[in-house]
């Protein structure tokens, strides 16, 4: 019995340490913007790397997401003949919910995991210690640029992704359900989804922030050589997935309350 309680206590304790550590890291990142201590060349490099690395995977995911949602609503459309449902399904579900979540998860796999691997390698090969010994603060030099880049880029990539999701949806509607492309886009416009569109972009931005904090946290805490880097990446993507769902819930609730 006591060992069981000890285990639960241990789990809760490590969870608290984890969230506390991430929160402190976030505070440290925000602190490095006032006064601006964030290295500008490193920031541009991070923008380029995150944006370019994330772009193909986000476009492909979005295309598939739009296609899948149209296919899934196809059953109802075929049964009732209500093509207006298509615009709603492709627009509402993709813009507000499934689009940001799938794009966020893929982005976390591509960019977040890559970031953890990179930082983890720097930590286990003592490059971060070298930075410190040169009086360069690792948070301002390494973490803050990535935070900025992921926040901004996931926002922009979600906007791009929404467009490609509609393209994928339109193509599927044409091929599988024989709905003309013009009518499909008319339905999307008629569904009046501007609010959902903004909600999706907001979600993208918040996901970018949480992926950045989580992936940097686990990267900076990697230890124990090659195996340690692998373990850090594993823990990082799991935590990033959970944080995506949790922040999604919080954003949806706050948005609903407004």
């Amino acid at each position, binding site marked *: 019995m006591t060992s069981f309680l000890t285990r639960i206590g241990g789990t809760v304790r490590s969870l608290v340490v984890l969230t506390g550590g991430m929160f402190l890291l976030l505070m440290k990142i925000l602190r490095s913007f006032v006064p601006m201590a964030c290295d500008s060349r490193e920031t541009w490099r991070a923008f380029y790397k995150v944006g370019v690395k994330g772009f193909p995977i986000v476009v492909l995911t979005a295309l598939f997401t739009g296609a899948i949602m149209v296919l899934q609503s196809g059953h109802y459309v075929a049964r009732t003949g209500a093509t207006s449902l298509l615009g709603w399904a492709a627009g509402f579900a993709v813009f507000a919910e499934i689009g940001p979540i799938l794009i966020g998860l*893929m982005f976390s796999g591509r960019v977040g995991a890559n970031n953890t*691997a990179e930082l983890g390698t720097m930590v286990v090969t003592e490059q971060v210690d070298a930075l410190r010994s040169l009086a360069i603060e690792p948070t301002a030099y390494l973490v803050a640029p990535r935070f900025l880049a992921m926040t901004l880029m996931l926002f922009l990539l979600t906007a791009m992704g929404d467009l490609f999701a509609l393209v994928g949806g339109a193509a599927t509607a044409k091929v599988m359900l024989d709905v003309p492309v013009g009518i499909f886009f008319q339905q999307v416009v008629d569904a009046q989804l501007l609010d959902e569109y903004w909600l999706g972009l907001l979600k993208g931005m918040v996901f970018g922030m949480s992926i950045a904090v989580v992936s940097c946290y686990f990267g900076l805490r990697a230890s124990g050589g090659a195996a340690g880097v*692998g373990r850090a990446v594993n823990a990082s993507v799991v935590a990033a997935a959970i944080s995506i769902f949790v922040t999604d819930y919080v954003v949806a609730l706050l948005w609903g309350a407004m």
Partner: protein
Amino acid sequence: MSQAIAQWMDSMVRLGRLFRQTFTSVLKGSLRRRRSQLIVQMYEIGNKSVLFITATLSILGMISVFQVLKQVEKIVPDFSMIGPAFIQMMIREFGPTITGLMIATRVGSGIAAEVGSMVVTEQVDALRMSNAKPVDYLVAPRFVACGIQTMMLSIYGVVVGVIAGSITAYVFWNISFGMFLRFDLVQWGDVVSGLLKALAYGFTIPIVASQAGLETKGGSEGVGAATTRAVVNASFAVVILDLLLSGFSYLVLYG
């Protein structure tokens, strides 16, 4: 561009080869002598993912119901079909697919990290030297364990998501459980389609992840890169399979 396509084709060929090797290894009964290894992997892949799946799928259920009801409230204040439609979508699409993505994230990266660090520390070479095939020893147990456990976790994920959704509907809109938890719309096609997806994800993820792990080069940098590749490729495989199987079930299972 053509180089990228050639590379992609090449990696697909290698993936196919690893799949064939693993499949023949399982058929030849390589697991009969490694039953304990299989149990260990099933525990690692299945039991240790339960908490993760519970957290993510319950939140997914809550958000979906919350947002759909918020939207429906504006158009038609008729909530009677929301529950059945939500349950149908969960069984057919979101339950298996989101579970699959979560398994790809957790298990895929775990397999790649583990196998990758074995490669860079030359443990895989040591296996080869002692005439034990890495496929028999490392890939086959994970392949079977992940296949079985993804199926189980998908079913569990659907249940968790539906329960969380019905609680949300009750708390925020006062929709009774009796009205929400109806299975009117669920057909056999939905169940078959969902289970087919879970099966496909379960057997694809370990192969994709093992492939990334076995091709690890270099030191800690290589392991990091392999783990990243495993997560991306496995999640992307899930999305592609989802599209293919959705199309298949739309055309075949429902006629």
